[in-house]
Structures are given as structure tokens and as C-alpha cells.
């Protein structure tokens, strides 16, 4: 019994310690004046690597999710004779929730894991140590551009995801199931409020971008420099980022709806 209490205590202490270390890491990362002349090309390259290369996953997933929501929505709304409201249902569920959350989860799996593995491998092959030995801070030259690229890429990908998902819903609802195109678009236009729905979705995706990028670069930078260590760090990166996305989604939704 005492052992179990001691183990729980040790686990809690380690967790708090790691959280503190992650906080210190974030402060060291952000409390600097970036030299954009030097990191510019690297940020550009990372935007391609984490943003453009994630595009195909985002577009395909967005299309299928939109099509599924279109099908499910039509199936349910038809029972109440309200299938003309499909555009409204689709736009609100995607702009408020599915767009930011699913694109962030996909981003954590596709780009976050890649960032963690890349930084971890650079650590294992002493590239970070050699940079440090040259008097160049690896946080500024390696970690910061990747963090910044993640911060910029995810909100844009989230917008693309939402647009494609709405189109997927249109294809199923209007083209396949025969919902009137005029009512589909006009109901959507009438129901969606830019500030409450679209902007809140963008804010959510910005918060998720911050969380995913932070977790990914931190896990890579602090990974144990072995094959097993990098593998564990990559897994932790995806798991922690996914849980943070879902937890913060609830928190942000509660704040935005104003129910709490």
C-alpha cells in the first residue's frame, strides 16, 4: 500500500517536473529576438515540409469527412423533412468543430511526429551538439523555424480542410441525394456567422497549432538519443498532442459558447 502511494507520488512529481521543463523550454524558445534573415530560408523549407506535404492528407480526409457528414446529416434530417437544412448543419459542424479538431489531429500524426523524429535524430547523431559547439544556438537555428512553420501551417491547413469538407458534403447532398443547391447554399449563408463560427474555428486551430508544435519540438529536443528513445518520443508526441487537442477543444468550446 505504502509502495503504491510512493509510486503515485513519484509519478506525480515526475509529471510536474516534466511540465515545468516543457514550460522553461517554451520560454527559452519564445523569449528571443529571431534573426529572420538567417532563419528565413529554413522557415520557408519547413513550411513546405510540414505544410505543403501535409496538404494531400488534409484534402483527402476533408473530402471524405464532408461526404460522411453529408450522408449522415441527410439521413437524419430527412426523417424530419428538413433535408434542405443540410448546408447549415454541414457548415456549422465543420467550421466550429470538425475542421479545426480533425485537421489538428491529422497534423499531429503527419507533421508533429516527423518534427519530433527529425529533431531527435539530429540529437542522436550529435548534429545539435556540433552546432552548439560552433557557438550557434540549436534552439534558434533548428527548433524555432520548425515551431514557427507549424504555427503558420496548421491554421491554413484547417481552412483548406473545412472548405474541402463543405464541398464533399455538397457532392453527396446536392449532386447525389438531390438536395436543392439553392437552399443548400442560402441556408448555409444565412446560418453561419463569421465572427461566432468561422473566427472561433480559426482561433481554435491557432491554439491547436501552438500546442502540437510545442509538444513536437519539445519531445524531439529532449528525446533519449537512441533508436528506442526516438521511437518513444515520437509516440509521446502524437499521444500528448492528440489529448491536448481534445482537452483544449472542450475548454475553448465552453469559453466560446459562453455556457460556463
Amino acid at each position, binding site marked *: 500500500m505504502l509502495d503504491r502511494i510512493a509510486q503515485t507520488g513519484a509519478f506525480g512529481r515526475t509529471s510536474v517536473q516534466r511540465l515545468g521543463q516543457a514550460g522553461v523550454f517554451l520560454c527559452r524558445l519564445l523569449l528571443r529576438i529571431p534573426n529572420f534573415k538567417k532563419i528565413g530560408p529554413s522557415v520557408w523549407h519547413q513550411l513546405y515540409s510540414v505544410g505543403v506535404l501535409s496538404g494531400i492528407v488534409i484534402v483527402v480526409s476533408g473530402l471524405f469527412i464532408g461526404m460522411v457528414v453529408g450522408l449522415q446529416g441527410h439521413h437524419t434530417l430527412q426523417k424530419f423533412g428538413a433535408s434542405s437544412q443540410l448546408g447549415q448543419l454541414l457548415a456549422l459542424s465543420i467550421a466550429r468543430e470538425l475542421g479545426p479538431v480533425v485537421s489538428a489531429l491529422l497534423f499531429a500524426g503527419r507533421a508533429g511526429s516527423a518534427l519530433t523524429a527529425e529533431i531527435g535524430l539530429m540529437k542522436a547523431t*550529435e548534429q545539435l551538439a556540433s552546432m552548439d*559547439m*560552433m557557438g550557434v544556438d540549436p534552439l534558434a537555428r533548428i527548433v524555432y523555424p520548425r515551431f514557427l512553420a507549424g504555427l503558420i501551417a496548421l491554421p491554413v491547413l484547417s481552412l483548406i480542410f473545412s472548405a474541402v469538407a463543405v464541398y464533399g458534403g455538397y457532392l453527396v447532398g446536392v449532386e447525389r441525394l438531390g438536395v436543392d443547391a439553392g437552399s443548400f447554399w442560402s441556408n448555409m449563408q444565412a446560418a453561419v456567422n463569421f465572427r461566432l463560427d468561422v473566427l472561433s474555428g480559426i482561433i481554435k486551430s491557432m491554439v491547436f497549432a501552438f500546442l502540437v508544435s510545442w509538444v513536437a519540438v519539445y519531445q524531439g529536443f529532449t528525446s533519449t538519443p537512441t533508436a528506442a528513445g526516438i521511437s518513444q518520443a515520437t509516440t509521446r508526441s502524437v499521444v500528448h498532442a492528440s489529448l491536448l487537442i481534445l482537452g483544449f477543444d472542450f475548454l475553448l468550446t465552453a469559453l466560446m459558447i459562453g455556457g460556463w
Partner: protein
Amino acid sequence: MHKPWVDISKLTFSHQNKLIFDQVDIRVQRGKITAIMGPSGTGKTTLLQLIGGVLTPNAGKICVDGDDVHALSRKNLSIARRNMGLLFQNGALFTHLSVFDNVAFPLREHTNLSELLLRDVVLMKLEAVGLRGAAHLMPSQLSGGMSRRAAFARAIALDPELMMYDEPFTGQDPISMGVLVRLIKRLNELLHTTTMIVSHDVEETCEIADYVYLLAEGRVIGEGTPAALLNSTQPDIRQFMRGEADGAVPFHYPARPYAEELLDA
């Protein structure tokens, strides 16, 4: 005797409850080639990382050019490191940059050279290690020995006052080995670079070293000129310098008696 360029006094360092250094004293004279030799696992690479301020000792002091490395602020440590070149054991080339850009990296970071001048400096460094023709290749296209030579060119790009080599001769073919040995010696003679070599290769290291420290089991077991150590009658020094398996330094990691462990099954 002049004031040492690197002055290590009473250095104590442990890692994961294992004592790596116990009150070690080492002095590296300015402009000389000092070799640190010893069996595997004695912490020779760790020593270079301690000098570079990558690791922090538990006790003791490491001064480079009069500055206590571990008392420097992050900014001053970064400035001090610009005067140190470290050739890592596996090269540690940046995998996302070509050989040319790897060598150009420290120059772009710390100098204001025009791209034209920078190109000439990089090509000169690459010519010195025989890799001018490989400037456009990526590190993944190089062999182990070529990676080490490219890393060597990068380490000397800024002409540092202190050069540290971590196992520079491992994995080199006889031609590259001969070139590297001569290059280290020439760099030391022409630029008066203070040089530290960590190596197992007794023959090549003793050929160019002015002074040798022998490390084993966390302490200095011998020091002196290469000739003095090669002729030493002290059992542990003799064992290492002549590559004998049995002697004062155990070949086997501590374990239960062999027969007893086999009969346990």
C-alpha cells in the same frame, strides 16, 4: 613553463551513478599537441564535451584561455566556443546541408564574408581534406571516412585556437589516415593551434603528439612524452601502449566467475 591553454583541475564527473572522472588534473600547453589516450569507456569523449561546456562537472574546474568554461554566461560561452573546433567521432555533419554548405555554415554564422570570398575559403578547406570534388554531395552520399574529413574541414573553417579531435583516425583507409595525421600536424605548426587528440590509435597519435595523458578507471594513470610512455615499465601503461589483453587494466567488464555463471543454467 607557459600558462596552460586548457587547465583541468580536480575534475570529478559521474553519469548515471557511474564515476567517470575522479579528481583528474590535465594541462594542455598552448600551441602543443596533447593526446588523451586510454581504453574504451574511460570517458575520453566525455572529457571533450566537458571542455566545450556541453556537460557540467560535479566538481573541479575547467579553464580555457583563463576562463572557467562552466562559470561563463550562455552568451559568453557561445563566444568562447567560436575559438574551439571539435571534430566529432561520427562527423556530425548536418544531414540537410550539402558538404559545401556544411563547411560554409560556421563562416556564414560568424563572419561577414561575401559569398564569393566564402566560396574560396570553403574550397580551400575542402581541398586540404581532398574533398573539393565532393562539395556538391549530400552527407548521405559520403562514406564514413569522407564524412569525417568533411567534418574536419568544417571544424577548421574558422581557424580556431583550440582544436579537439575525437577519434580522428578511426575508420580511415591508410591514405586518408596519413593525410589526416600530416594535416593535424601542419595545422598545429602553421597556425600554432593548441591541439587535443582523443584516440585509441597509439602509433599514429604518438607520431605527432608532444605530450600524452593516459586515462583509465576515472584517473590519469600516466603522462609524459610519447617516447617516455612507450618505454615505461609501469604495468598498466605498458599494457595499453603495447596492446596487451591481460594486465593491470581489466579487459573484462566486472562479472561473476565465468564457470559459476555457465553452471547456473
